[in-house]
Protein backbone atom coordinates (compact mmCIF):
# COMPACT_ATOMS: atom_id res chain seq x y z
CA UNK A 1 0.00 0.00 0.00
CA UNK A 2 2.64 2.46 1.10
CA UNK A 3 4.75 1.26 -1.74
CA UNK A 4 2.08 2.12 -4.30
CA UNK A 5 1.56 5.54 -2.83
CA UNK A 6 5.20 6.40 -2.98
CA UNK A 7 5.31 5.40 -6.57
CA UNK A 8 2.64 7.88 -7.49
CA UNK A 9 4.43 10.64 -5.60
CA UNK A 10 7.67 9.74 -7.28
CA UNK A 11 6.06 9.73 -10.69
CA UNK A 12 4.44 13.10 -10.10
CA UNK A 13 7.65 14.55 -8.77
CA UNK A 14 9.64 13.50 -11.77
CA UNK A 15 7.01 14.23 -14.38
CA UNK A 16 8.68 14.89 -17.71
CA UNK A 17 8.04 18.34 -19.12
CA UNK A 18 7.37 16.72 -22.45
CA UNK A 19 4.21 15.17 -21.06
CA UNK A 20 3.05 18.65 -20.08
CA UNK A 21 3.93 19.87 -23.57
CA UNK A 22 1.99 17.05 -25.18
CA UNK A 23 -1.10 17.69 -23.08
CA UNK A 24 -0.98 21.41 -23.88
CA UNK A 25 -0.71 20.64 -27.58
CA UNK A 26 -3.71 18.31 -27.36
CA UNK A 27 -5.62 20.84 -25.30
CA UNK A 28 -5.30 23.29 -28.16
CA UNK A 29 -5.58 20.98 -31.14
CA UNK A 30 -8.61 18.93 -30.07
CA UNK A 31 -11.02 21.80 -29.32
CA UNK A 32 -9.97 23.47 -32.57
CA UNK A 33 -10.54 20.28 -34.54
CA UNK A 34 -13.92 19.63 -32.97
CA UNK A 35 -15.09 23.23 -32.71
CA UNK A 36 -15.58 23.03 -28.99
CA UNK A 37 -17.33 26.14 -27.65
CA UNK A 38 -17.85 27.14 -24.03
CA UNK A 39 -20.41 29.54 -22.76
CA UNK A 40 -18.87 32.87 -21.84
CA UNK A 41 -20.14 35.19 -19.11
CA UNK A 42 -19.31 38.82 -19.24
CA UNK A 43 -17.73 40.52 -16.24
CA UNK A 44 -18.64 44.01 -14.99
CA UNK A 45 -15.52 45.62 -16.45
CA UNK A 46 -16.56 44.53 -19.97
CA UNK A 47 -20.28 45.00 -19.41
CA UNK A 48 -19.59 48.62 -18.54
CA UNK A 49 -18.56 49.24 -22.16
CA UNK A 50 -21.49 47.30 -23.56
CA UNK A 51 -23.97 49.16 -21.35
CA UNK A 52 -22.46 52.50 -22.30
CA UNK A 53 -22.88 51.82 -26.02
CA UNK A 54 -26.35 50.47 -25.32
CA UNK A 55 -27.33 53.65 -23.49
CA UNK A 56 -26.20 56.16 -26.13
CA UNK A 57 -29.03 57.79 -28.11
CA UNK A 58 -29.02 57.17 -31.89
CA UNK A 59 -26.76 59.60 -33.72
CA UNK A 60 -24.20 59.79 -30.89
CA UNK A 61 -20.61 59.77 -32.03
CA UNK A 62 -18.27 56.95 -31.15
CA UNK A 63 -14.58 56.93 -32.02
CA UNK A 64 -12.62 53.71 -32.37
CA UNK A 65 -8.86 54.00 -32.57
CA UNK A 66 -6.94 51.08 -34.05
CA UNK A 67 -3.68 51.08 -32.15
CA UNK A 68 -2.32 47.63 -32.84
CA UNK A 69 -0.61 45.61 -35.52
CA UNK A 70 -0.73 42.16 -37.10
CA UNK A 71 1.02 40.43 -34.19
CA UNK A 72 -1.90 40.97 -31.82
CA UNK A 73 -4.73 40.51 -34.31
CA UNK A 74 -6.07 37.33 -32.64
CA UNK A 75 -6.76 39.29 -29.48
CA UNK A 76 -7.52 42.78 -30.75
CA UNK A 77 -9.47 42.27 -33.96
CA UNK A 78 -12.50 40.48 -32.42
CA UNK A 79 -12.85 43.31 -29.90
CA UNK A 80 -12.85 45.98 -32.57
CA UNK A 81 -15.34 44.06 -34.68
CA UNK A 82 -17.76 43.29 -31.86
CA UNK A 83 -17.80 46.91 -30.72
CA UNK A 84 -18.15 48.26 -34.27
CA UNK A 85 -21.04 45.90 -34.90
CA UNK A 86 -22.76 47.06 -31.77
CA UNK A 87 -22.18 50.73 -32.53
CA UNK A 88 -23.56 50.48 -36.06
CA UNK A 89 -26.51 48.39 -34.97
CA UNK A 90 -27.49 51.05 -32.45
CA UNK A 91 -27.44 53.67 -35.26
CA UNK A 92 -24.53 55.49 -33.70
CA UNK A 93 -21.99 57.31 -35.85
CA UNK A 94 -18.74 55.40 -36.14
CA UNK A 95 -15.45 57.30 -36.51
CA UNK A 96 -12.35 55.20 -37.08
CA UNK A 97 -8.75 56.34 -36.83
CA UNK A 98 -5.32 55.04 -35.85
CA UNK A 99 -2.39 56.26 -33.81
CA UNK A 100 -0.37 53.27 -34.99
CA UNK A 101 0.89 53.08 -38.57
CA UNK A 102 -0.10 49.41 -38.59
CA UNK A 103 -3.69 50.27 -37.66
CA UNK A 104 -5.28 51.14 -41.04
CA UNK A 105 -4.84 47.65 -42.56
CA UNK A 106 -6.75 46.30 -39.57
CA UNK A 107 -9.43 48.94 -40.12
CA UNK A 108 -9.74 47.63 -43.68
CA UNK A 109 -10.24 44.11 -42.35
CA UNK A 110 -12.99 45.38 -40.09
CA UNK A 111 -14.69 47.22 -42.95
CA UNK A 112 -14.69 43.98 -44.96
CA UNK A 113 -15.84 41.76 -42.11
CA UNK A 114 -18.39 44.00 -40.47
CA UNK A 115 -19.59 46.88 -42.59
CA UNK A 116 -19.57 45.25 -46.00
CA UNK A 117 -21.23 42.08 -44.72
CA UNK A 118 -23.73 43.15 -42.06
CA UNK A 119 -24.29 46.84 -42.65
CA UNK A 120 -24.35 47.38 -46.38
CA UNK A 121 -27.07 49.99 -45.98
CA UNK A 122 -24.81 52.24 -43.91
CA UNK A 123 -23.48 55.17 -45.95
CA UNK A 124 -19.85 56.22 -45.89
CA UNK A 125 -19.47 59.73 -44.58
CA UNK A 126 -22.92 59.67 -43.05
CA UNK A 127 -22.89 56.67 -40.75
CA UNK A 128 -19.24 55.77 -40.63
CA UNK A 129 -15.93 57.24 -41.68
CA UNK A 130 -12.33 56.09 -41.79
CA UNK A 131 -9.95 58.91 -40.91
CA UNK A 132 -6.79 56.83 -41.11
CA UNK A 133 -3.43 57.14 -39.42
CA UNK A 134 -1.49 60.22 -38.47
CA UNK A 135 1.99 60.30 -36.95
CA UNK A 136 2.61 61.93 -33.62
CA UNK A 137 1.70 59.32 -31.01
CA UNK A 138 0.26 60.95 -27.89
CA UNK A 139 0.92 64.33 -29.51
CA UNK A 140 -1.74 63.50 -32.09
CA UNK A 141 -4.26 62.68 -29.37
CA UNK A 142 -3.39 65.91 -27.65
CA UNK A 143 -3.82 67.85 -30.89
CA UNK A 144 -7.19 66.40 -31.91
CA UNK A 145 -8.53 66.98 -28.44
CA UNK A 146 -8.29 70.65 -29.31
CA UNK A 147 -8.81 70.59 -33.03
CA UNK A 148 -9.68 67.42 -34.89
CA UNK A 149 -10.32 69.01 -38.25
CA UNK A 150 -7.01 70.83 -38.08
CA UNK A 151 -5.18 67.50 -37.93
CA UNK A 152 -7.51 65.52 -40.15
CA UNK A 153 -8.15 67.73 -43.15
CA UNK A 154 -9.03 64.69 -45.25
CA UNK A 155 -10.24 61.17 -44.66
CA UNK A 156 -8.03 58.18 -45.41
CA UNK A 157 -8.75 58.40 -49.13
CA UNK A 158 -7.79 62.06 -49.37
CA UNK A 159 -11.32 63.40 -49.68
CA UNK A 160 -11.75 66.78 -47.98
CA UNK A 161 -13.22 66.41 -44.54
CA UNK A 162 -15.83 69.11 -45.24
CA UNK A 163 -17.55 66.84 -47.75
CA UNK A 164 -18.82 64.46 -45.12
CA UNK A 165 -22.10 65.06 -43.39
CA UNK A 166 -21.01 63.36 -40.18
CA UNK A 167 -17.94 65.58 -39.89
CA UNK A 168 -19.85 68.85 -39.99
CA UNK A 169 -20.56 69.11 -36.31
CA UNK A 170 -17.29 67.61 -35.18
CA UNK A 171 -14.56 70.03 -34.20
CA UNK A 172 -12.62 68.16 -31.61
CA UNK A 173 -12.69 65.08 -29.45
CA UNK A 174 -15.10 66.55 -26.93
CA UNK A 175 -17.81 66.07 -29.56
CA UNK A 176 -17.43 62.32 -29.15
CA UNK A 177 -19.76 60.54 -26.78
CA UNK A 178 -17.35 57.67 -26.33
CA UNK A 179 -13.78 56.86 -27.33
CA UNK A 180 -12.74 53.23 -27.60
CA UNK A 181 -9.07 52.48 -28.04
CA UNK A 182 -8.21 49.00 -29.21
CA UNK A 183 -4.52 48.85 -28.47
CA UNK A 184 -1.57 46.66 -27.72
CA UNK A 185 1.12 48.94 -26.38
CA UNK A 186 2.41 52.47 -26.63
CA UNK A 187 0.70 54.68 -27.56
CA UNK A 188 -2.52 53.05 -26.49
CA UNK A 189 -5.26 53.07 -23.90
CA UNK A 190 -3.09 54.74 -21.30
CA UNK A 191 -2.35 57.65 -23.64
CA UNK A 192 -6.00 57.99 -24.63
CA UNK A 193 -6.89 58.26 -20.97
CA UNK A 194 -4.10 60.71 -20.17
CA UNK A 195 -4.37 62.94 -23.21
CA UNK A 196 -8.06 62.77 -24.16
CA UNK A 197 -10.25 61.21 -21.47
CA UNK A 198 -8.89 63.08 -18.45
CA UNK A 199 -8.34 66.57 -19.89
CA UNK A 200 -11.43 66.52 -22.12
CA UNK A 201 -13.70 64.69 -19.69
CA UNK A 202 -14.68 62.21 -22.41
CA UNK A 203 -15.58 58.61 -21.56
CA UNK A 204 -12.75 56.34 -22.70
CA UNK A 205 -12.94 52.56 -22.89
CA UNK A 206 -10.23 50.18 -23.96
CA UNK A 207 -9.48 46.80 -25.42
CA UNK A 208 -5.98 45.47 -24.92
CA UNK A 209 -3.92 42.29 -24.98
CA UNK A 210 -3.93 40.13 -21.87
CA UNK A 211 -0.30 40.98 -21.18
CA UNK A 212 -1.07 44.66 -20.97
CA UNK A 213 -4.36 44.54 -19.11
CA UNK A 214 -2.99 44.22 -15.54
CA UNK A 215 -1.09 47.47 -16.06
CA UNK A 216 -4.32 49.27 -16.97
CA UNK A 217 -6.50 48.18 -14.08
CA UNK A 218 -5.26 51.16 -12.08
CA UNK A 219 -7.32 53.43 -14.34
CA UNK A 220 -10.59 51.56 -13.94
CA UNK A 221 -13.23 52.76 -13.20
CA UNK A 222 -12.24 56.34 -12.43
CA UNK A 223 -10.47 57.21 -15.66
CA UNK A 224 -11.34 54.22 -17.76
CA UNK A 225 -14.97 53.35 -18.34
CA UNK A 226 -14.31 49.69 -19.02
CA UNK A 227 -11.64 47.35 -20.30
CA UNK A 228 -11.57 44.28 -22.51
CA UNK A 229 -8.50 42.24 -21.61
CA UNK A 230 -7.24 39.72 -24.12
CA UNK A 231 -9.28 37.16 -25.98
CA UNK A 232 -11.42 36.64 -22.92
CA UNK A 233 -12.41 40.30 -22.91
CA UNK A 234 -13.30 40.09 -26.60
CA UNK A 235 -15.33 36.94 -26.03
CA UNK A 236 -17.19 38.55 -23.16
CA UNK A 237 -18.20 41.47 -25.34
CA UNK A 238 -19.31 39.10 -28.06
CA UNK A 239 -21.31 37.15 -25.51
CA UNK A 240 -23.03 40.30 -24.28
CA UNK A 241 -23.76 41.31 -27.86
CA UNK A 242 -25.09 37.95 -28.95
CA UNK A 243 -27.28 37.47 -25.91
CA UNK A 244 -28.98 40.79 -26.60
CA UNK A 245 -28.98 40.58 -30.39
CA UNK A 246 -29.07 36.89 -31.38
CA UNK A 247 -28.98 37.84 -35.07
CA UNK A 248 -25.21 38.37 -34.73
CA UNK A 249 -24.61 34.85 -33.52
CA UNK A 250 -23.24 33.66 -36.83
CA UNK A 251 -20.96 36.60 -37.53
CA UNK A 252 -19.82 37.69 -34.12
CA UNK A 253 -18.40 34.71 -32.33
CA UNK A 254 -14.79 34.59 -33.46
CA UNK A 255 -13.33 35.19 -30.02
CA UNK A 256 -15.81 32.81 -28.42
CA UNK A 257 -14.70 30.15 -30.90
CA UNK A 258 -11.03 30.72 -30.07
CA UNK A 259 -11.81 30.57 -26.37
CA UNK A 260 -12.38 26.81 -26.66
CA UNK A 261 -8.70 25.88 -26.84
CA UNK A 262 -7.83 28.57 -24.34
CA UNK A 263 -10.27 27.28 -21.78
CA UNK A 264 -9.19 23.67 -22.13
CA UNK A 265 -5.50 24.62 -21.98
CA UNK A 266 -6.23 26.73 -18.94
CA UNK A 267 -7.96 23.85 -17.24
CA UNK A 268 -5.01 21.58 -18.05
CA UNK A 269 -2.64 24.09 -16.47
CA UNK A 270 -4.88 24.42 -13.41
CA UNK A 271 -4.92 20.63 -13.12
CA UNK A 272 -1.14 20.56 -13.27
CA UNK A 273 -0.84 23.17 -10.56
CA UNK A 274 -3.18 21.14 -8.35
CA UNK A 275 -1.35 17.88 -9.06
CA UNK A 276 2.00 19.54 -8.47
CA UNK A 277 0.88 20.72 -5.05
CA UNK A 278 -0.61 17.39 -4.08
CA UNK A 279 2.66 15.72 -4.95
CA UNK A 280 4.56 18.36 -3.02
CA UNK A 281 2.46 17.97 0.12
CA UNK A 282 2.41 14.20 -0.09
CA UNK A 283 6.16 14.19 -0.26
CA UNK A 284 6.52 16.59 2.62
CA UNK A 285 4.20 14.55 4.78
CA UNK A 286 6.16 11.44 4.03
CA UNK A 287 9.39 13.15 4.91
CA UNK A 288 7.93 14.32 8.20
CA UNK A 289 6.82 10.81 8.99
CA UNK A 290 10.22 9.51 8.18
CA UNK A 291 11.77 11.99 10.57
CA UNK A 292 9.26 11.12 13.26
Amino acid sequence: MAEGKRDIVEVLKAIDRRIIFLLIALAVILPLAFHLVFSVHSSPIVEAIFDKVESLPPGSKVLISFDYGPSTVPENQPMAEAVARHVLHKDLKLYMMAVWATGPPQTEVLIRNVIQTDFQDKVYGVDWINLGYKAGNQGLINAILLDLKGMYTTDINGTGIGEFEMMRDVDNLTDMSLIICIGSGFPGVREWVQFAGDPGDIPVAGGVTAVEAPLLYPYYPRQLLGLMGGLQGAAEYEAALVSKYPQFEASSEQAIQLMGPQTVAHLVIIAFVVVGNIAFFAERRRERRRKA
Partner: protein
Amino acid sequence: MAQTLELWIAALLTFMIFSFLYKDNPFYKFAEHLFVGVSAAYWMVIGIWSTLMPNLVARLWPSSVSGFINMPEDAQPEYHFIIPAIFGILMLTRLVERISWLSRWAMAFVIGFAAGTNFTRYLQSDFVGQIYNSMYPIIVKADGGFALGATISSIVLIVGVICALIYFFFSKEHTGAFGAASRLGIWFLMVTFGAAFGYTVMARISLLTGRIQFLGSWLASIF
Protein backbone atom coordinates in the same frame (compact mmCIF):
# COMPACT_ATOMS: atom_id res chain seq x y z
CA MET B 1 3.08 28.56 -57.16
CA ALA B 2 5.00 31.03 -55.03
CA GLN B 3 2.19 30.94 -52.48
CA THR B 4 2.20 27.17 -52.25
CA LEU B 5 5.97 27.20 -51.86
CA GLU B 6 5.71 29.85 -49.15
CA LEU B 7 3.08 27.83 -47.31
CA TRP B 8 5.18 24.67 -47.44
CA ILE B 9 8.41 26.33 -46.32
CA ALA B 10 6.57 28.02 -43.45
CA ALA B 11 4.85 24.79 -42.41
CA LEU B 12 8.06 22.75 -42.48
CA LEU B 13 9.96 25.37 -40.48
CA THR B 14 7.11 25.44 -37.96
CA PHE B 15 7.43 21.69 -37.44
CA MET B 16 11.22 21.92 -37.21
CA ILE B 17 11.02 24.48 -34.42
CA PHE B 18 8.31 22.60 -32.54
CA SER B 19 10.56 19.54 -32.62
CA PHE B 20 12.80 21.36 -30.12
CA LEU B 21 10.18 20.68 -27.46
CA TYR B 22 11.02 17.02 -27.67
CA LYS B 23 14.75 17.54 -27.77
CA ASP B 24 17.51 19.27 -29.71
CA ASN B 25 17.83 17.68 -33.16
CA PRO B 26 19.21 18.37 -36.64
CA PHE B 27 15.90 19.80 -37.87
CA TYR B 28 15.80 22.38 -35.11
CA LYS B 29 19.46 23.19 -35.72
CA PHE B 30 18.70 23.79 -39.36
CA ALA B 31 15.73 26.06 -38.68
CA GLU B 32 17.61 27.90 -35.94
CA HIS B 33 20.65 28.60 -38.10
CA LEU B 34 18.55 29.65 -41.07
CA PHE B 35 16.45 31.93 -38.90
CA VAL B 36 19.52 33.57 -37.35
CA GLY B 37 21.10 34.28 -40.73
CA VAL B 38 17.95 35.51 -42.43
CA SER B 39 16.76 37.64 -39.51
CA ALA B 40 20.15 39.29 -38.96
CA ALA B 41 20.20 40.27 -42.63
CA TYR B 42 16.57 41.35 -42.50
CA TRP B 43 17.21 43.93 -39.81
CA MET B 44 20.33 45.14 -41.62
CA VAL B 45 18.37 45.65 -44.84
CA ILE B 46 15.61 47.45 -42.98
CA GLY B 47 18.30 49.57 -41.35
CA ILE B 48 19.69 50.50 -44.74
CA TRP B 49 16.39 51.33 -46.42
CA SER B 50 14.43 52.87 -43.60
CA THR B 51 17.16 54.58 -41.59
CA LEU B 52 20.41 55.02 -43.46
CA MET B 53 18.97 56.10 -46.80
CA PRO B 54 16.15 58.44 -45.72
CA ASN B 55 17.74 59.80 -42.56
CA LEU B 56 21.36 60.15 -43.58
CA VAL B 57 22.01 59.97 -47.30
CA ALA B 58 18.81 61.79 -48.24
CA ARG B 59 19.43 64.51 -45.67
CA LEU B 60 23.03 65.15 -46.60
CA TRP B 61 22.79 64.66 -50.33
CA PRO B 62 19.13 64.63 -51.37
CA SER B 63 19.69 64.47 -55.12
CA SER B 64 21.66 61.22 -54.90
CA VAL B 65 18.73 59.11 -53.74
CA SER B 66 15.73 60.94 -55.15
CA GLY B 67 14.97 57.99 -57.39
CA PHE B 68 15.24 55.35 -54.69
CA ILE B 69 13.09 56.55 -51.88
CA ASN B 70 10.07 58.75 -51.40
CA MET B 71 11.00 62.29 -50.58
CA PRO B 72 9.94 65.81 -51.47
CA GLU B 73 11.28 67.15 -54.77
CA ASP B 74 12.82 70.25 -53.29
CA ALA B 75 14.50 68.69 -50.26
CA GLN B 76 17.41 70.77 -49.02
CA PRO B 77 20.52 69.24 -47.45
CA GLU B 78 20.59 69.32 -43.65
CA TYR B 79 24.23 69.46 -42.80
CA HIS B 80 23.99 68.73 -39.10
CA PHE B 81 23.50 65.09 -40.07
CA ILE B 82 27.23 65.01 -40.65
CA ILE B 83 27.46 64.50 -36.85
CA PRO B 84 25.89 61.03 -36.75
CA ALA B 85 27.89 60.14 -39.87
CA ILE B 86 31.11 61.00 -38.07
CA PHE B 87 30.06 59.10 -34.96
CA GLY B 88 29.06 56.14 -37.12
CA ILE B 89 32.44 56.07 -38.80
CA LEU B 90 34.18 56.43 -35.43
CA MET B 91 32.24 53.35 -34.33
CA LEU B 92 33.84 51.45 -37.19
CA THR B 93 37.34 52.24 -35.95
CA ARG B 94 36.91 49.15 -33.82
CA LEU B 95 37.95 47.23 -36.90
CA VAL B 96 41.41 48.82 -36.73
CA GLU B 97 43.13 47.85 -33.49
CA ARG B 98 45.45 50.89 -33.37
CA ILE B 99 42.72 53.53 -33.41
CA SER B 100 39.87 51.50 -31.97
CA TRP B 101 39.75 53.73 -28.88
CA LEU B 102 38.10 56.39 -31.07
CA SER B 103 34.93 54.28 -31.08
CA ARG B 104 34.47 55.28 -27.45
CA TRP B 105 33.51 58.75 -28.63
CA ALA B 106 30.56 57.30 -30.46
CA MET B 107 29.76 55.10 -27.47
CA ALA B 108 29.89 58.18 -25.27
CA PHE B 109 27.25 59.84 -27.43
CA VAL B 110 25.03 56.77 -27.20
CA ILE B 111 25.40 56.59 -23.41
CA GLY B 112 24.72 60.30 -23.04
CA PHE B 113 21.62 59.89 -25.16
CA ALA B 114 20.45 56.93 -23.06
CA ALA B 115 21.06 58.71 -19.78
CA GLY B 116 19.47 62.00 -20.82
CA THR B 117 16.28 60.57 -22.28
CA ASN B 118 15.74 57.94 -19.61
CA PHE B 119 16.33 60.35 -16.76
CA THR B 120 13.45 62.59 -17.77
CA ARG B 121 11.17 59.87 -19.08
CA TYR B 122 11.18 57.84 -15.89
CA LEU B 123 11.13 60.91 -13.68
CA GLN B 124 7.92 62.06 -15.32
CA SER B 125 5.81 59.02 -15.96
CA ASP B 126 6.99 56.54 -13.37
CA PHE B 127 8.10 58.62 -10.41
CA VAL B 128 6.00 61.78 -10.40
CA GLY B 129 3.09 60.14 -12.24
CA GLN B 130 2.76 57.23 -9.82
CA ILE B 131 2.91 59.45 -6.76
CA TYR B 132 0.18 61.58 -8.28
CA ASN B 133 -1.95 58.51 -8.93
CA SER B 134 -1.74 57.52 -5.26
CA MET B 135 -3.06 60.76 -3.81
CA TYR B 136 -6.68 59.74 -3.47
CA PRO B 137 -8.92 59.74 -0.41
CA ILE B 138 -8.42 56.68 1.78
CA ILE B 139 -11.93 56.76 3.18
CA VAL B 140 -14.31 56.72 0.26
CA LYS B 141 -17.62 58.49 0.64
CA ALA B 142 -20.76 57.13 -0.92
CA ASP B 143 -24.22 58.67 -0.85
CA GLY B 144 -25.03 59.21 2.78
CA GLY B 145 -22.35 57.22 4.53
CA PHE B 146 -19.08 55.85 3.38
CA ALA B 147 -18.37 52.91 1.13
CA LEU B 148 -16.90 50.12 3.22
CA GLY B 149 -15.63 48.00 0.34
CA ALA B 150 -13.98 50.85 -1.49
CA THR B 151 -12.45 52.13 1.74
CA ILE B 152 -10.92 48.75 2.55
CA SER B 153 -9.59 48.56 -0.98
CA SER B 154 -7.92 51.93 -0.85
CA ILE B 155 -6.39 51.16 2.55
CA VAL B 156 -4.98 47.91 1.17
CA LEU B 157 -3.68 49.80 -1.84
CA ILE B 158 -1.86 52.46 0.10
CA VAL B 159 -0.46 50.02 2.67
CA GLY B 160 0.70 47.84 -0.24
CA VAL B 161 2.49 50.66 -2.01
CA ILE B 162 4.22 51.87 1.15
CA CYS B 163 5.28 48.40 2.33
CA ALA B 164 6.53 47.35 -1.08
CA LEU B 165 8.55 50.56 -1.27
CA ILE B 166 10.00 49.75 2.13
CA TYR B 167 11.11 46.39 0.76
CA PHE B 168 13.22 48.29 -1.78
CA PHE B 169 15.08 50.28 0.91
CA PHE B 170 18.74 49.35 0.65
CA SER B 171 20.49 51.42 3.26
CA LYS B 172 18.46 50.48 6.32
CA GLU B 173 18.47 47.17 8.07
CA HIS B 174 15.19 45.31 7.65
CA THR B 175 14.53 44.54 11.29
CA GLY B 176 11.80 45.32 13.78
CA ALA B 177 8.76 47.17 12.51
CA PHE B 178 10.64 48.17 9.39
CA GLY B 179 11.42 44.54 8.71
CA ALA B 180 7.80 43.53 9.26
CA ALA B 181 6.63 46.17 6.81
CA SER B 182 9.25 45.02 4.32
CA ARG B 183 8.03 41.42 4.66
CA LEU B 184 4.47 42.57 4.06
CA GLY B 185 5.84 44.41 1.05
CA ILE B 186 7.37 41.28 -0.44
CA TRP B 187 4.03 39.52 0.04
CA PHE B 188 2.37 42.22 -1.99
CA LEU B 189 5.02 41.79 -4.66
CA MET B 190 4.38 38.05 -4.71
CA VAL B 191 0.64 38.57 -5.18
CA THR B 192 1.47 41.02 -7.97
CA PHE B 193 3.68 38.50 -9.72
CA GLY B 194 1.21 35.67 -9.30
CA ALA B 195 -1.65 37.77 -10.62
CA ALA B 196 0.28 39.04 -13.63
CA PHE B 197 1.53 35.54 -14.42
CA GLY B 198 -1.94 34.03 -14.17
CA TYR B 199 -3.42 36.73 -16.34
CA THR B 200 -0.82 36.26 -19.05
CA VAL B 201 -1.20 32.52 -19.45
CA MET B 202 -4.17 33.08 -21.72
CA ALA B 203 -2.34 35.34 -24.15
CA ARG B 204 0.41 32.78 -24.49
CA ILE B 205 -2.06 30.03 -25.30
CA SER B 206 -3.60 32.18 -28.03
CA LEU B 207 -0.21 32.36 -29.76
CA LEU B 208 -0.18 28.60 -30.01
CA THR B 209 -3.77 28.59 -31.22
CA GLY B 210 -2.69 30.88 -34.04
CA ARG B 211 0.12 28.54 -35.03
CA ILE B 212 -2.09 25.45 -34.93
CA GLN B 213 -4.65 27.24 -37.08
CA PHE B 214 -1.91 27.98 -39.58
CA LEU B 215 -0.90 24.32 -39.69
CA GLY B 216 -4.58 23.49 -40.11
CA SER B 217 -4.82 25.72 -43.16
CA TRP B 218 -1.68 24.09 -44.55
CA LEU B 219 -3.21 20.65 -44.06
CA ALA B 220 -6.41 21.83 -45.70
CA SER B 221 -4.42 23.04 -48.72
CA ILE B 222 -3.00 19.54 -49.25
CA PHE B 223 -6.30 17.75 -49.28
